[in-house]
């Protein structure tokens, strides 16, 4: 377990995503429509484009390069051109802070 502070809860709008870098690793942090937070690897499994520039719709993140979509809750790739699932990370919220277990 390695819980690290990613951001404050009010730094990401509902139904949006933000980038979080830690060392040489990069993550995408999501704020879902029902006010929950999730974290995945930051780069798309298709061509390493950062998902923080993408579009969150309900529980999917759409990659900005070729519109590949993932369910950011479990990282599932939802069809071509993304075929490989995204790694997800446990998230908890404490005192208005989003913490990610970067493992």
């Amino acid at each position, binding site marked *: 377990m390695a819980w690290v502070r990613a951001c404050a809860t009010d730094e990401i709008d509902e139904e949006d995503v933000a980038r979080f870098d830690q060392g040489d690793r990069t993550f995408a942090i999501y704020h879902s429509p029902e006010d929950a937070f999730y974290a995945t690897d930051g780069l798309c499994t298709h061509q390493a484009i950062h998902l923080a520039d993408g579009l969150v719709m309900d529980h999917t993140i759409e990659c900005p*390069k*070729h*519109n590949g979509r993932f369910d950011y809750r479990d990282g599932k790739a939802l069809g*071509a051109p993304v*075929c490989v699932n995204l790694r997800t990370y446990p998230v908890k919220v404490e005192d208005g802070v989003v913490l990610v277990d970067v493992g």
Partner: protein
Amino acid sequence: MAFTGTRRDYGLLGLDAKAAVENGLASAKWYSCPIGRKELKEFMRRSDGPALRDTALWFGLLAFSGGAGVALWGSWWAVLPFAVYGVLYGSASDSRWHECGHGTAFKTRWMNDVLYNVASFMVFREPTIWRWSHTRHHTDTVIVGLDPEFNVMRPADVLAILLNVFAFKNVVLGFKQLVLHASGRVDAEEATFIPDMERPKVFRTARIWLALFALVVLACVLTHSVLPAMLIGLPTMYGAWLQLLFGLTQHAGLDEDVLDHRLNSRTVMMNPVFRFLYWNMNYHIEHHMFPMVPYHALPRLHEVIKHDCPKPYPSLYAAFAEIIPAVLRQAKDPTYFVRRELPSRAKPLDLQPAGPGMVAAE
């Protein structure tokens, strides 16, 4: 007179493909006009409404013109409704195929998928193959040796362009590939952009399409008439001319191997009828730079980034006043291209493309 100078290798397995990778042009970082995340998010917002309305209108017009064509069949008056039907079927399907392939036409995913498959059949582009080739087109737009969807290669093959006025080249090559795929194979170039796991889908669809075409032929034989094929199949060809006109405006005659869509793509102002048929793909710089923005938001996006882009062409006519002489010149001089002027207050391209990977003619 045949061109005899140096020739670039547009094949996906050729020398220029290797050169492009070595020069850092593959999957490279592209220029993007400055725009705030909040504003861009507004433009990217999806909805089903506009595409449902446009699709209902499109199929309504197809049914009306097709019905009129059938009713008037046997008289010369049938030419008129079939001319309309053909353009709706063989040209408007191109933009529906395109937008649904990006998944941006509708908010609801299955709606994109259904229309994508229907439009793919109408425009005669195998859905899985072309989804992947278009993905590559967006990764490596107009990069020699990497982009499988070149408008016009240099030296320009004018005869090939003319053959596609009625989609001859596309359909002949497309049928060859369809048979190959139905037999359970992809060719070496396709293998560079279609992952293994997607191939069973390619083979299955090819077989279904061959069966559908066989049914149309059977209907023609049974009815002793070409009418069934006038409704399904042939309009891909006799209605393709407008798709070619629209498609040529996208990149023809412009620079290659440059990591800036402002220099290799055109934005052309069009009338509302053309914009309906083309689903706003005339805003082509905007589309390539921000492929997540749905067609109905592109005119608004254009207003926000136009200060950072070359002047749009005021009409289709103005675009072709540039394209025709450029392509004719490229038939003889493959080094020629139209250099787009960025406005003085535009942000310059800070990403330097590598030098061209010219290879000697065989």
